[in-house]
């Protein structure tokens, strides 16, 4: 069996048994990345030299008996909004095109402690603002299942890298669906944990009250293992929560007997693609046959989640992104007159259109005279949305629905109408507002071969229930990671893509 065929846990086991060396694993993933990148563009930075050095060091620790965990030696990728000391961290923005952090994000440190080999940093929507990975300054990422389509976003690079087997698992971040929606589009498993479960220290902030780091993997077992590795209570993040139980892999049980699952009617109605609806209902049926009690119910308030989210997230973004001013790091414009004009020129040249749009909206809703009517109103609606979920979880162990209303749209079809793009987040966004855990797992494909994901939403701290249900579904359907069709065989790039040109752009921008 080829190395790339293994899941992260299978590979980790082979490494522990000395059947595969850490260097061999890293070389296999790097070779696949080099073959796939011209077509997919998952990575902003691929670091072969650094990865091989890490691999040798981790091998030494394994051989010395210092490292024996399930992810030791497994090659992974990290979304480019998480700081790694000394390594370019761009947030897929021009304004951070030359930024090398002086410290490493806690979630990445935890992954390093578990012995993972970090291959590089993955592409994303600029500052995580977007649902397609097309707002990246370094060119869009393509969906490995069909390169004419987007991978989703904003963690599109991480999801595409896993789907294209350019790594064995990745970290993403999720502010309004940015792990779950691209996982659904790319046919991989992705989880956004309960707010505060993974430290945000070193995650470049977008909407601080909503941002949460989570794993993106080939299957549910890997998801649990990565989650177990990255979660911790961190005094450096004041919103970090001390959990009683971090043993997420214990939840990998093939059993949902008696589990109460609610399907919101308001998630299955107007606007939902027919094939997505069918696939999600089939998945619900599978869980029902395994003993879960499945019923439909009215969640309520669904259509208010998006306007509340864009008010709150934009407000927080306008404040968080004030720090990018060309003084201490990152890009600085040339030809300014004074300090204020330097700020303005730097930010105007450094940020892309979608980022500017959200900074302006956020500045407006926070401004004197509008703060109560917009910002506080949205926070009141957030309280109502949280209450609607509280009511649902009095009756159900979890909520099941689609992760997105459609499968992956074609490249270039979303950005012309931002409001339409925002509507694609309708099933994921309220989960962030309420701080809940949510995961997406693949449940089939549409007639074009594009993956469909189901979303499982739990009450706060109930990740284990989600993992158990998703694992049971996997066992019942004998579902395994499905490699992307376009990259099967040699991993050669399909003809007629312009990926190579974009890679050059990224490199030029790095050198600038």
């Amino acid at each position: 069996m080829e190395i790339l065929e293994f899941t992260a846990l299978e590979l980790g086991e082979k490494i522990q048994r000395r059947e595969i060396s850490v260097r061999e694993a890293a070389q296999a993933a790097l070779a696949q990345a080099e073959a796939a990148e011209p077509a997919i563009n998952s990575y902003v930075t691929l670091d072969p030299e650094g990865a091989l050095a890490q691999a040798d060091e981790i091998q030494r620790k394994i051989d010395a008996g210092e490292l024996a965990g399930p992810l030791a030696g497994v090659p992974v990728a990290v979304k480019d909004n998480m700081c790694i000391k000394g390594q370019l961290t761009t947030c897929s923005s021009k304004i951070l095109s030359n930024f090398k952090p002086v410290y490493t994000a806690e979630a990445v440190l935890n992954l390093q402690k578990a012995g993972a080999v970090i291959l590089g940093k993955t592409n994303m929507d600029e500052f995580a603002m977007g649902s397609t990975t097309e707002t990246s300054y370094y060119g869009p990422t393509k969906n490995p299942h069909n390169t004419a389509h987007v991978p989703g976003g904003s963690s599109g690079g991480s999801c595409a890298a896993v789907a294209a087997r350019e790594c064995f698992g990745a970290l993403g971040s999720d502010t309004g669906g940015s792990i779950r929606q691209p996982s659904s589009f790319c046919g991989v498993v992705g989880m956004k944990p309960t707010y505060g479960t993974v430290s945000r220290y070193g995650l470049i902030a977008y909407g601080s009250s909503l941002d949460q780091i989570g794993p993106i993997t080939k299957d549910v077992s890997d998801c649990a293992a990565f989650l177990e590795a990255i979660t911790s209570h961190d005094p450096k993040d004041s919103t970090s929560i001390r959990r009683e139980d971090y043993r997420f892999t214990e939840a990998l049980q093939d059993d949902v007997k008696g589990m109460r699952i609610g399907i919101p009617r308001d998630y299955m109605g107007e606007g939902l693609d027919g094939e997505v609806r069918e696939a999600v209902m089939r998945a619900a049926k599978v869980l029902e046959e395994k003993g879960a009690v499945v019923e439909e119910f009215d969640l309520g308030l669904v259509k208010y989640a998006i306007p509340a989210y864009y008010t709150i997230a934009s407000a927080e973004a306008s404040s968080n992104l004030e720090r990018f001013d060309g003084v201490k790091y990152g890009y600085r414009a040339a030809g300014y007159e004074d300090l204020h004009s330097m700020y303005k020129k730097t930010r105007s040249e450094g940020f892309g259109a979608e980022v500017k749009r959200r900074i302006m909206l956020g500045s407006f809703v926070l401004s004197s005279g509008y703060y109560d009517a917009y910002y506080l109103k949205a926070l009141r609606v957030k309280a109502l949305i949280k209450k609607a979920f509280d009511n649902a979880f009095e009756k159900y162990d979890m909520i099941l629905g689609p992760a997105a209303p459609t499968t992956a749209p074609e490249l270039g079809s979303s950005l012309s109408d931002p409001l339409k793009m925002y509507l694609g987040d309708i099933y994921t966004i309220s989960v962030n507002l309420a701080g809940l855990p949510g995961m997406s797992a693949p449940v089939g494909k549409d007639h074009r071969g594009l993956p469909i994901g189901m979303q499982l939403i739990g009450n706060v701290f109930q990740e284990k229930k989600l993992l158990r249900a998703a694992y049971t579904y996997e066992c019942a359907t004998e579902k395994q990671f499905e490699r992307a069709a376009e990259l099967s065989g040699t991993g050669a790039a399909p003809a007629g893509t312009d990926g190579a040109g974009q890679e050059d752009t990224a490199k030029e921008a790095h050198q600038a």
Partner: protein
Amino acid sequence: MANRISDETIEYVGILAKLELSDSEKEAAKADMEKMLDYIDTLNELDTTGIEPMSHVFQVSNVFREDVVTNGDSREEMLANAPQRKDDSFEVPRTIG
């Protein structure tokens, strides 16, 4: 009710956001913002009288710790990122007179 963003408002937002916008960017920003605010106005369909604004889903207040330095001196590493530096400082354009 359709929102109308005046030239003065977009000018003001540009100052708050520290962004320099060309005339065409200003027009586009006005149109975008009017559309978004119309959409956000749907929140007014909900009666939120007596509902407290929820800024955080968990009941957490300030988290304090002792003010003890735990990191080392990384002055050089930080200055290495500076767009412009002068000796041991970040350099910016003159700010007063």
